């Protein structure tokens, strides 16, 4: 369990990182916390020629408030997000999700940017950033662009991030406390076989539901959201709507959970997440 050889670069600015990405193209991989990439490299499933370690670029792990939104640097670790007072106040869902990732050691090293770009179908953060309508900010030689969370994930382990692009920050709107994350875990790895993040806006009478672990890419449970728009969130109404949580998706199946069970958990966890969010006021 030893990675193949590679050459290593440690830029100190985003521009420098972009220049290295541009130079090395698809032979390069960005190393953030390394908790997705390094295991793949040790199994020799990934064998990049060049590893670009963005761990020393100043400011990339900032968690701050800007223009009414919460801005999270790509290198913010799960632990930093979990323990951030700002996140707890302004966007508690992210902290809740961060706390459910892996284990304490993994959360100390794993980063939100690394997790999102790796796009493992069982990763936790995607459920939250979808429900939150996050914006993901990418830098490239062409400047920077913003991508809505809903447009970020393309397929299993695949995002819109181009080989010469770097995800450098994620911004989310400030949200109320009425949010919850309910997760069924793959017992061995700790990844989600179904994780549902729900945000309830009592005034606007809307819910937002992000689902991870169920399909090859995370998704918004739009049928559930539509069914509950403008409705009172009674347990019966929520249960009926939650039954639509896997509508139109093709659930994954593996030794840990069949497609049918994943679809079922999507409904159960959606119901539970919405009701929990309601209960949190």
């Amino acid at each position, binding site marked *: *369990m030893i990675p193949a050889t*590679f*050459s*290593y670069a440690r830029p100190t600015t985003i521009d420098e990182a972009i220049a290295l990405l541009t130079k090395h193209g698809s032979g390069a991989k960005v190393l953030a916390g*390394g908790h997705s990439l390094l295991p793949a490299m040790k199994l020799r499933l990934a064998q990049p020629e060049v590893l670009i370690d963005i761990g020393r670029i100043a400011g990339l792990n900032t968690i701050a408030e800007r223009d009414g939104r919460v801005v999270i640097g790509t290198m913010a670790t799960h632990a930093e997000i979990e323990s951030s007072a700002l996140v707890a106040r302004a966007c508690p869902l992210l902290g809740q999700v961060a706390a459910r990732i892996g284990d304490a*050691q993994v959360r100390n090293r794993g980063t939100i940017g690394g997790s999102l770009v790796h796009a493992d179908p069982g990763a936790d953060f995607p459920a939250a950033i979808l429900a939150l309508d996050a914006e993901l900010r990418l830098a490239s030689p062409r400047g920077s662009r913003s991508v809505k969370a809903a447009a970020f994930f393309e397929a299993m382990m695949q995002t819109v991030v181009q080989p010469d692009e770097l995800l450098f920050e994620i911004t989310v709107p400030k949200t109320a406390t009425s949010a919850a994350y309910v997760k069924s875990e793959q017992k061995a790895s700790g990844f989600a076989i179904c994780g549902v993040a729900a945000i309830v806006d009592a005034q606007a009478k809307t819910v937002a539901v992000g689902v991870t672990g169920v399909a090859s890419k995370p998704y918004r449970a739009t049928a559930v959201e539509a069914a509950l728009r403008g409705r009172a969130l009674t347990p019966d109404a929520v249960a009926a709507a939650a039954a639509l949580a896997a509508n139109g998706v093709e659930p994954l199946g593996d030794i840990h959970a069949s497609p049918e069970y994943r679809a079922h958990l999507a409904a159960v966890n959606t119901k539970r997440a919405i009701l929990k969010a309601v209960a949190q006021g």
Partner: protein
Amino acid sequence: MTQTIRVRINGTAREHAVEPRLLLVHYLREVCGLTGTHIGCETSICGACTVLVDGKAVKSCTMLAVQADGSDVTTIEGLARNGSLHPVQEGFWECHGLQCGYCTPGMIMAGVEILQRHARPTREQIAEGLKGNLCRCTGYVHIIDAIERAAGARRAERGVGGDLKW
């Protein structure tokens, strides 16, 4: 092609030229000769390789040595001070928190971090804090006892208004 790194390990400054692919755990074990940190899975699940990097518990099998450049690393060998055991080490001994001992260094390092986060951890908090550490011998109860005991011991040593000894 090597890269020079400077790491402070258990209070001692070290400088080595290493291959970029060298894992931190192999750096500690093979280059620095600190074999107390163990390897149990290599996929960042079992936690036998847990060390503190800049005070935070990390799995050293899932970190490159070059990523630790400039860091302060504490391994199990650096935990006892002036010949006396750390309270978590004491707890493991007193409570029979180990059998074969292989997961133990990682368990102890994880335990140290749990006590950094929670001065008075509940048993649930301890269990949650050990989620990243597998033990196949003990069934965990005595390990939780050990960390719970260490929390009490540490509070006792601290005294009122005193400095944290560890």
